[in-house]
């Protein structure tokens, strides 16, 4: 992904993000829909990396319902994208909290659904196996490490953009990214063994 979905000073359909958020907060559905269209891919992909496939749509929908319900209280102290990211992470956490199931249990139900639903979709199955394997690894990571991987891959941010967002130097971000990948590799090695 070359272009970031969480661009800071972006213009969406000729309007600034700030004015769209303000209009949405005043009850303008078109402004809200424009924001939805713009941010859906990034939110969806973040959720995709975090919850089992069969629940990605529902969790994504809950994120935007939550945004809709609380957009009036968004005061613009932080960037809208940061606020949206926080809501997305909270919904992912709620998903696991409400189900009162561990992530491993959910992954098992994911595998069972997959086996019963699509016995002849071998290619998809291989990809989904990788997804489950990866999700388990990501789950084991420290928040900082998981976040930098999600910023890089789920949102497609460049290192410079991550550095700006996190308030870190470019070198610090690259270093943290390398450590995150190495740790993830170790975790995946451990879980495979």
């Amino acid at each position: 992904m070359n272009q970031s979905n969480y661009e800071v000073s972006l213009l969406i359909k000729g309007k600034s993000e700030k004015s769209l958020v303000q209009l949405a907060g005043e009850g303008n559905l078109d402004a809200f829909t424009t924001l939805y269209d713009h941010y859906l891919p990034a939110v969806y992909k973040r959720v995709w990396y975090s919850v089992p496939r069969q629940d990605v749509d529902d969790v994504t929908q809950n994120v935007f319902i939550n945004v809709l319900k609380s957009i009036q209280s968004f005061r613009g102290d932080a960037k809208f994208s940061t606020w949206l990211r926080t809501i997305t992470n909270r919904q992912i956490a709620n998903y696991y909290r409400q189900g009162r199931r561990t992530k491993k249990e959910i992954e098992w139900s994911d595998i069972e659904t997959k086996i019963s639903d699509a016995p002849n979709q071998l290619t998809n199955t291989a990809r989904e196996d990788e997804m489950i394997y990866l999700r388990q690894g990501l789950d084991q990571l420290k928040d900082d490490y998981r976040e930098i991987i999600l910023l890089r891959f789920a949102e497609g941010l460049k290192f410079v953009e991550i550095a700006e967002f996190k308030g870190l130097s470019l070198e610090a971000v690259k270093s943290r990214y390398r450590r995150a990948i190495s740790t993830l590799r170790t975790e995946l090695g451990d879980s495979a063994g």
Partner: protein
Amino acid sequence: MRENLKLAQLIYQVGRDGVPNEDVSERIRKTLEAEWKAKWPPQKTGFLRQGLFGWLSPKKSEWRSTRQREKTLTIGLALFTIIVMVMIVFTFPADNGGLPGAANQGGLFPLIVFSLLALGIAVWWFVKRKR
């Protein structure tokens, strides 16, 4: 280093499937529109309901908007001025500060009526804006 690169490629490839298709996007959009209509029911039409009264009695959430506050205070001040002007015309005789007019009779009754009217509007406004 090479292993790290391979893992990064795997993460990227797995994520490539994480794109909402049109059906999903449309379904979520419809749900959001329904939620939106429940949160912001269609506005009542007409100048008095939507315009004047709408500006005078904003919802609590609308009050946060600077533009809305300006509208409310401007209309409120204009109405207040009109009421005071009318009170002066009706209440005080022309030779005692009142304006020359048709009903330039003076007396306590118009003063009470217009004071109650102003008080009523203020209370109504305060109650309505707490929605």
